[in-house]
């Protein structure tokens, strides 16, 4: 036989690769946790005259007890204990720039304006999660043993420490994925059902964020791999805290009526289009202004365990 039509011989009649209609997103830590009551929203810095917001802290509502006072004696004044928490917002931005050639062949629709806008919204939530995780690792009270896995007993210890410090529940715990895994394994090994982990329902995930993993010991558990390391990378520093320990704020950019700008959420996220005509490039730039601080140190416990 001769002149068979083989695949190798018809390079001019075929393509090297064909694009599937399915596509995937790269793995990344995309957890969002903005809606929990343990996180205090300090406010929007727009129009306040400063990028630093101040939250007063007053020692009232039972902070000082009544003092035993003799009949006919004048009671001495109790000093009012006050403090202040300041949070400064800073700019966070991202840009994707695509050429006209990239745009015209976009068979999957991943290089469209609406896709970039959706990405900006997701990135804003994930950025806030990362900021919260990065301030929550440094409470002076801590539990855990360096180089050893997290145990249920240590988790319950953290709850006890917060209760001793008079921190009102509900508590929120932010742990690295490894720490959550260790806790789950330890529970399975030791409790035989005596300690219950209530897994997250779909409704709870939609309400509380994609990092929500359920409730254990009455504490809401979030997992994110943005939890930073400790002890020169040997451990991970998760946390558990109540309301008052972490404060976050943002700054909305007021709209200017510019058709190339798309304010989302009243300007909390600004997505804008920047065209460089001579180069045939279009950039989609997203901006947000965020600030996170560790507020009341006694309101949190760091959980430092093996990576």
């Amino acid at each position, binding site marked *: 036989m001769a002149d068979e039509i083989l695949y190798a011989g018809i390079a001019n009649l075929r393509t090297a690769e064909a694009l599937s209609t399915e596509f995937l997103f790269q793995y990344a830590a995309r957890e969002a946790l903005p809606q929990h009551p343990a996180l205090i929203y300090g406010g929007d810095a727009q129009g306040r005259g400063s990028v630093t917001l101040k939250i007063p802290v007053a020692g009232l509502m039972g902070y000082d007890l009544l003092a035993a006072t003799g009949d006919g004696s004048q009671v001495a004044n109790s000093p009012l204990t006050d403090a202040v928490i300041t949070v400064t917002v800073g700019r966070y931005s991202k840009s994707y720039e695509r050429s006209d050639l990239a745009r015209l062949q976009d068979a999957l629709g991943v290089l469209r304006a609406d896709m970039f806008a959706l990405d900006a919204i997701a990135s804003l939530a994930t950025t806030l999660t990362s900021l919260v995780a990065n301030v929550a690792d440094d409470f002076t009270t801590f539990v855990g043993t360096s180089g050893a896995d997290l145990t249920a007993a240590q988790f319950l210890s953290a709850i006890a420490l917060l209760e001793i410090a008079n921190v009102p529940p509900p508590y929120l715990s932010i742990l690295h994925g490894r720490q959550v895994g260790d806790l789950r394994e330890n529970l399975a090994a030791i409790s035989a059902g005596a300690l219950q982990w209530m897994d997250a329902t779909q409704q709870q995930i939609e309400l509380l964020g994609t990092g929500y993993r359920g409730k254990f010991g009455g504490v809401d558990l979030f997992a994110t791999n943005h939890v*930073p390391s400790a002890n020169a990378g040997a451990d991970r520093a998760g946390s558990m805290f109540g309301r008052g320990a972490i404060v976050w704020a943002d700054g909305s950019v007021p709209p200017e009526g510019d058709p190339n700008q798309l304010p989302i959420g009243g300007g909390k996220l600004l997505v804008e289009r920047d065209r460089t005509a001579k180069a045939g490039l279009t950039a989609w730039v997203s901006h947000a202004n965020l600030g996170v601080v560790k507020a009341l140190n006694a309101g949190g416990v760091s959980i430092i365990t093996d990576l």
Partner: protein
Amino acid sequence: MPKLNPNAKEQPATPEPPKPPKAKAAAPAKGKARTVPAGLKVSQETPLVTAKAGRETKPPKLGASPPFYFRFHPDRWCVLGDHVVPLLGKLKLQGGLNRVEKRNETLHIRVAVSHSEDEGWITIPWDVEGPGTSYIRKIDGTELWISRFERVFPDSEHIATDEAGYIAFLHKLVEDGVVPAPELHVLEALEGKTRQSWGEVADRARHVPSYAALAERLARDLEVVRAEIDKRRGETAPAATAPELPPIADAAGGAS
């Protein structure tokens, strides 16, 4: 073969050796494949593959991490590698985080450091080990800042720790007076925490053999902490004066 006569004038020609008979190929049985003859030629080849991308060119699979100062708090001590050492925190230098401001490319940290020190933290300067040195590093091509005691790898999430080097660094901070030695009450709290952990694990190890190693490690940690407490007790002087007591009325109603 006929004998050759050395004296003969003409020697007869050496006869050709007899030819070996032709090997007959085995006749294939009806309906069956021909068997492979012996001595099949084999060539050593490797299949054609595309070039593998060099892993060494890829960045580590770790997210961005801002530059930071190590900071020390008197209440944070732990046991690391059979040593009682400070559990250092990190003051991360990123705009919007803990009162740090970023204007153009400069980080304004005065307020952040001041607030941190108000909370009792001691900030450890980058060149604490000597002029021109720094304990932080930035990985080229990334926004990942790590300490000099950590090592990251291309295309990997793994972080290797130079534990011995880090412990030596921490001891030097105390020896040089950069951070104070641990207070007795802090060590006693650490002992209580370690004893509690050891108790739970030791009880578990009776029934779950895999917990035995952790129980031994925690027992060692407890010994280390107790040794440190004994050392501090030897160094701590007793109070010089008795505390002042408030006036107390006697049974007759007069103040004493």
